[in-house]
């Protein structure tokens, strides 16, 4: 799936002064590519990822997945696309607090697809080392455990694109390797993976490294 990013920008106001959190980014990302985006805090990485996920509207420009424009269009179409084709892992904690781990993953798995994915849920949870937690509620999990549940949820529908905002930030090195290995495998099987990271190890997984600086994205290797 080709991601076509056309001249997107996001303008915010701070102290009555406008500034660009995203400053006119143009980029095409092809199937099977594994991008790592580095950048200082506040440089616009999360803003970028969320515009790609279609949950934040850019002030200008558009993002297309093949022919589907995610930056504006019918809510139902975009929502279904996001559920099925985008595995989004947000920066904060993103689990629904009133549902168990299993229910959180299951909800996403069965939102548009009524076919039972019990087996798949079991598998991905085992792989991420959270299988014994499936009946727990998010409040009872550690930060790293919550992160891995979010990763499991992002993977469950076998999306074409992974958008991950610091997915390894609170993981130990063992789990970081597990998660990055999964991403690498996905990229090798033709999925597109975009990871925002502070983790210097991430660059060992790909040669598509970008730097975000004041809303501008530049390739550094």
């Amino acid at each position, binding site marked *: 799936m080709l991601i076509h990013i056309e001249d997107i920008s996001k303008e915010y106001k701070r102290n009555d002064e406008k500034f660009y959190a995203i400053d006119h980014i143009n980029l095409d990302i092809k199937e099977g590519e594994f991008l790592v985006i580095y950048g200082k805090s506040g440089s616009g990485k999360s803003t970028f990822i969320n515009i790609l996920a279609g949950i934040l509207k850019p002030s200008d420009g558009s993002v297309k997945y093949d022919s589907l424009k995610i930056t504006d269009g019918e809510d139902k179409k975009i*929502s279904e696309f996001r559920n099925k084709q985008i595995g989004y892992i947000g920066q904060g904690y993103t689990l629904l607090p*009133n549902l168990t781990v299993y229910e959180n993953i299951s909800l996403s798995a069965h939102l548009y697809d009524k076919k039972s994915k019990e087996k798949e849920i079991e598998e991905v949870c085992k792989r991420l080392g959270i299988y014994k937690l499936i009946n727990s509620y998010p409040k009872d999990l550690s930060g790293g455990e919550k992160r891995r549940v979010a990763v499991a*949820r992002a993977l469950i529908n076998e999306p074409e694109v992974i958008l991950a905002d610091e997915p390894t930030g609170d993981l130990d090195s063992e789990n970081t390797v597990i998660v990055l290995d999964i991403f690498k495998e996905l990229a090798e099987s033709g999925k597109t993976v975009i990871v925002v990271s502070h983790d210097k190890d991430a660059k060992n997984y790909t040669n598509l490294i970008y730097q975000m600086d004041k809303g501008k994205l530049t390739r550094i290797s």
Partner: protein
Amino acid sequence: MAGRSFGTFRIAGKNIKAGNFKNVSIIILIAFTAFFLFGGNLIVYGMSEGLNQVRQRLGADLIIVPAGKGREISGILLEGEAGFFYLDNDLVSKVSETEGVKNVTGQYYFASAAATCCDSAKPIEIIGYDPDTDFVIRPWIEKKINRKLDDNAIVIGSDIDLKENNTIKLYDEYYPVIAQLDKTGTSMDQSVYTTKDTIIKIRRSALKKGFDFFSGEEDEIINQISSILVQVDEGSDLRAISRAIESNAGEVEVVEVNSTLNAISSTLNSIKEFFFVFAILFLAMASTTLFIVYYMCAGERKKEFSLMRMIGMTRAKVLSVVLTENILQGLAGSIAGLTAAGLFMYPFSALFNVRIRQPFAFPGVPGIVLLGLLSIFVTTFLGTAAGLLATYYVCTKDTYDIMREGE
């Protein structure tokens, strides 16, 4: 392991369970609203219904009593006060000759002095009617039975115990009952309607038991009545007919049933008006409060809403989760409120008859069910609308912005 598919209903249920305190407060608020709405309506409706029943049951346009007794008649009819007064039987034919008069019949009142005599908690009023000319009692019981009133028929009010084999016991004797009337919430519910012949029989057995509260001798009673009930031709002038009767029949007083009932009716109307104004204020307050509470909850749950959007729920689906929560809360609250209102109202209706001296009758089962459903609908709708509006208000922004605000 938990079931695999995951409906709106289940998410809503889990959300309600998790937000315990908030939800209990919302449910209590809705319960109060439902309690007030249902209870208040039941009172107003019950009073209207009581009045209606009385109006129907009186069935006459004019009641003729001995001069000076006019003020007692409404007490006797509606409030169960004892009163004995007598007119001459011959007056019936005199009255029926008056122009504009359609039907005339005589009635004869007794009140049993002792409650212990009979199958009733309170003293029984015995009302004698004339089966040949009666036009008052027949219409109510014809709805119940398919039989002409015969000489010995006894019809009883709703508060009198009916023995098996459809009999009642008066002074140790059993009498066959052909019909029991609906409740009116007046002393009519304590009445026994029967013919003169039966009254004479009852009197004899009462005398045998040592009760002597029937004044006069048997042959006097035969020739006496207490009041004359008159139905006039449609569209005729009641005033004129009253005056004609009064000048024709001599020492009598003519009571217009409608003006007696109108006094009650105007009390009822002011209660209704008061209730209406109060209800509107109350509902406005309740819906504002609900809106504020829901708005605050929605504010707190911003992040949750945006997370649902994030995993690919449509805006409509998120709203439907919230809608389901609101409906569940609305139903729980209004059913609780209704139950409380029911428990409160039942003893209240007795109080109404005794203390406030207003005819009061609960509406029948269909009426109560309808009123209940209406109250459930209104309160659930209020809660749901307030909840949805608040949620929608919070959710119209960009998902990511909502999530950040919610952190």
